[in-house]
């Protein structure tokens, strides 16, 4: 039921992740990495303390130094989304015919292609840049000012790809900076937010009218925002509907996605930061020792054959974002 025809593959995929996913990458494992470090679990002998391991936790998660602020903004966003953004978006989707909605989406996307082109160039991807330029040319002419995505068809085979100045900065080593969530703007990082603001002023400054007109900018922001909200409704539901802490879930998914995109630009493929980099040490495996002495005896390690130590070698290899696990080998 969540799966709608257009977005079905995406929705299904997200669903696959069962919950967690809409957008994100590898910096998130960072908090996780703490897991790996939890070496001294001998303490566990007293499982009694269980229920309230209430460690006072005024900390923010890794990569989210503005967490307090962000959470407030997120609540405001959720409220606005409930009373305004989502209803309007769903109405838009229901009332406006699909051809019109995709046409509008294409026009605004087409207007952005020169910026994609510029970033392709800045990232020293000439082939990509040429394809982007060709795509822009085809769609602006045959595609009637971008209304139709002719370039995507098999005749041309020039599908859209995303690119941004945030990607370019990341490509050259600028870190993401703190995570920032703003109402109606959504998840971001300082780098991407700043880059986005800068990029947003390129067309107004270079081309001028109509891009420098407030009416145009409002229409663009409103229409693309509402359209995006409507199109990602199923995904958002799948992601956040199953979350204990929707704020953290969205942040994690977003940051993982961004980190993967940047890693791909920097190293050629996402695979350089292989998902296998994070060793995933089983916290329960360490526990097997105390537990065994407590009761189950030798049986425990045997049945519970989830190796605890598989990972240390792997984690030395990880030059990648999931690297935070590295400190752990020491103990």
């Amino acid at each position, binding site marked *: 039921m969540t799966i709608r025809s*257009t977005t079905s*593959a995406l929705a*299904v995929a997200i669903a696959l992740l069962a919950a967690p996913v809409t957008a994100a990458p590898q910096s998130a494992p960072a908090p996780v990495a703490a897991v790996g470090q939890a070496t001294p*679990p001998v303490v566990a002998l007293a499982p009694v303390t269980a229920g309230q391991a209430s460690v006072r936790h005024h900390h923010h998660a890794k990569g989210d130094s503005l967490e307090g602020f962000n959470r407030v903004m997120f609540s405001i966003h959720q409220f606005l989304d409930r009373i305004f953004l989502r209803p309007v978006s769903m109405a838009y989707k229901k009332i406006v015919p699909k051809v019109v909605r995709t046409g509008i989406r294409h026009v605004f996307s087409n207007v952005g292609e020169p910026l994609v082109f510029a970033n392709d160039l800045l990232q020293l991807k000439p082939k990509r840049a040429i394809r982007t330029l060709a795509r822009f040319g085809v769609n602006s002419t045959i595609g009637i000012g971008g209304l139709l995505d002719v370039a995507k068809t098999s005749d041309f085979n020039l599908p859209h790809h995303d690119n941004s100045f945030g990607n370019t900065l990341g490509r050259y080593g600028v870190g993401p900076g703190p995570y920032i969530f703003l109402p109606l703007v959504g998840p971001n990082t300082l780098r991407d937010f700043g880059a986005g603001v800068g990029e947003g002023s390129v067309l107004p400054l270079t081309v001028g009218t109509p891009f420098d007109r407030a009416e145009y900018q409002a229409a663009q922001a409103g229409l693309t925002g509402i359209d995006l909200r409507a199109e990602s409704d199923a995904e958002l539901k799948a992601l956040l509907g199953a979350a*204990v802490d929707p704020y953290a879930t969205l942040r994690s998914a977003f940051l993982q996605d961004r980190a993967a995109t940047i890693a791909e630009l920097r190293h050629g493929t996402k695979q350089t930061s292989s998902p296998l980099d994070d060793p995933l040490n089983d916290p329960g495996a360490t526990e097997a020792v105390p537990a065994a002495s407590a009761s189950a005896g030798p049986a425990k390690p045997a049945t519970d054959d989830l190796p605890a130590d598989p990972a240390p070698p792997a984690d030395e290899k990880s030059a990648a974002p999931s690297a935070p696990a590295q400190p752990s080998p020491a103990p």
Partner: protein
Amino acid sequence: MIFSLRYVVPMVALCSAVPLAAQATDPARAPVQTLNDGLLTIMKGGSALGTQGRIARIGPVVDQTFDIGLITRLSVGPDWVKVAPGDQATLVSAMRRMTVAQYASNFSTYGGESFSIDPRVETRGTDKLVRTTLSAPKGDAVPIGYRLRQSGGKWKIVDVYYKNAISQLATRRADFASVFAKGGAKALIAHLDDLAAKGGR
């Protein structure tokens, strides 16, 4: 003689290539195949099966293909060892229920989707990475990766990667971290129960 050999040799090679390839199939692919088959079944069953019907179908598949226990431990993190055994068991069953319910509600319709599994399986230490692609007649193909680890002699899924980028486990850890840090296992269990109640509506 020579003439016929020219044909026979390649033919033999061709014939033997097939079983060879089959033999070379990585054992870690099997559970992923099982899961994909199960998902297609409930998608095609759709509303005829109903939510409960889909849960009933996919539940055993999840049990067979996922290491829910390990996933739960990793989702909670190192503090797992401080959780009372009773709460540990509750968390694991909550995680299972949630996983099954999510598959059942998210894979509820069929629009011609298909899964393919990349024959190349990456291995690192104890773990394997099986890459798959979800394709639909409309929309872009979506890469989905599965990380597997052996448990009791069987390969079990311990993490799922959407677009080869977003780790379900990493996301879940982030999801749990704050609630667990503030309220411990009990608070987490309460939240999960709430979610289950909502999902069952």
